[in-house]
């Protein structure tokens, strides 16, 4: 029950995109299609789970004054490993996400969860927090990417729903990301009564 609560907390109550408004850079930059948003979310989730686990294990060994650099070292090593992994096994996704994969290092969701959750809780809870927050991020990015892809090109996950000439090009470009995200946040706040 406790673990389920932590999961639920990450997906809904503290959703990093809609409620905490963390990690806006990849949210706006990589959601030009649903599949791009989802792969970015999953990549971040993988790093988040392992960084939460490692940091909660070694939290008592790290002196308080140097904890931020130590966290960054852990996160950066994980991201480098993930980058090589993606380059080897999913080269296409690696190519589309490009710079945004190494930028996961400075994603404030990961550092934020390390500081706010992993440094205060045990390893098992931290793993569940990583899964919850990661899922929340993935769902948000997939939703945003799906809306932008559908309105912009008439496709969803690459499947054509209506002709591309009916798509609004603005939603594929940067301003469309801001507009769609703004309305998504408004809808989520209204329905969740947060």
């Amino acid at each position, binding site marked *: 029950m406790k673990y389920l609560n932590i999961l639920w907390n990450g997906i809904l109550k503290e959703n990093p995109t809609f409620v905490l408004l963390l990690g806006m850079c990849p949210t706006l930059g990589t959601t030009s299609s649903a599949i791009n948003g989802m792969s970015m979310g999953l990549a971040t989730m993988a790093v988040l789970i392992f960084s939460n686990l490692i940091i909660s294990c070694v939290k008592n060994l790290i002196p308080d004054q140097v904890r931020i650099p130590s966290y960054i070292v852990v996160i950066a090593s994980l991201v480098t490993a993930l980058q090589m992994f993606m380059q080897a096994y999913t080269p296409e996704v690696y190519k589309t996400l490009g710079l945004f994969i190494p930028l996961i290092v400075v994603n404030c969701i990961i550092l934020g969860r390390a500081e706010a959750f992993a440094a205060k809780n045990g390893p098992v809870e931290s793993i569940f927090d990583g899964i919850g927050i990661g899922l929340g991020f993935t769902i948000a990015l997939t939703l945003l990417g799906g809306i932008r892809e559908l309105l912009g090109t008439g496709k969803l996950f690459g499947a054509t729903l209506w002709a591309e000439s009916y798509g*609004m090009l603005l939603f594929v470009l940067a301003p469309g990301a801001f507009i769609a995200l703004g309305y998504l946040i408004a809808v989520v706040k209204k329905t969740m009564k947060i």
Partner: protein
Amino acid sequence: MKPVISLSPHVHSGDSVQKNMYGVCIALVPALVASLCFFGLGAAIVMLASVASCVCFEWAITRFILGRKQLTICDGSAVLTGMLLGFNLPSNLPLWIIVIGALVAIGVGKLTFGGLGQNPFNPALVGRVFLLISFPVQMTSWPLSGQMGYVDAETGATPLALMKLAIKEGDTSYLDQLPSSLDMLLGQTGGSLGEVSALCLLLGCCFMLWRKIITWHIPVSILATVFVLAGLFHLIDPTYANPVQVILSGGLVLGACFMATDYVTSPMTARGQLIYGVAIGVLTVLIRDFGSYPEGMSFAILIMNGFTPLINTYVKPKRFGEVKK
């Protein structure tokens, strides 16, 4: 006899939102007549669709999404937004694109921020720029003036496209293909509904000045800045078009007289309005000559709309009795 007791002010000029909004609508009538003469049925369909969908969206969104009981469609602002949006569209635009434009103008541009008086950007221009970026092909294939039908009209290059081409290729022969200044003043060119007849727009502008709906500061400062800057470019390098044609082409007159002067989105003081006007003029010429789009008026106005709160903060009239340090 019972005395009437009321709070001050006791004398009222009768100025109201409705009066100003419908005043601007009346000022747009000559230009509307001109566009009907030049584009016929197409202009009528585009204009009707734009006004009707703007009013419908205003009513539906305030009623069902915002849940307000008060009826705001009678104040004329939605009608005016619809008219201005219609003037910014080519006369052969498909109806569904016009409806999307109206939804963005009213929904995103205006009601998201709380309705009339609270929108930071001119709603009609938000709709236009959204459509221009979203549907670049449909928004930039203008029928030639004198094509009366709604679909399958013959399209042609506008004066602005020719000017852009002359700069890009460094060849003044493109400028020789421009219609004469008199034709551009009367409206014998291709373009959006409100881009054709500068004369009718100026007539409407004079009407608004006479009725004191707007002051001279914004339109005059924009037109003067564009004239001086374009004239300077023309003197240095003749591949840049001559300043009279620059002013008469595209949506410059429409923007300067009707869009930039929107009460909500322009600065409040006369000095602020001059700064705003000059900046719009400079940005328009820069975007037209060096940007990737042939027309820069709408972008320039939207950019300066964003700066309006800043201008209002720093350009304040001197308070009575204030000593300058």
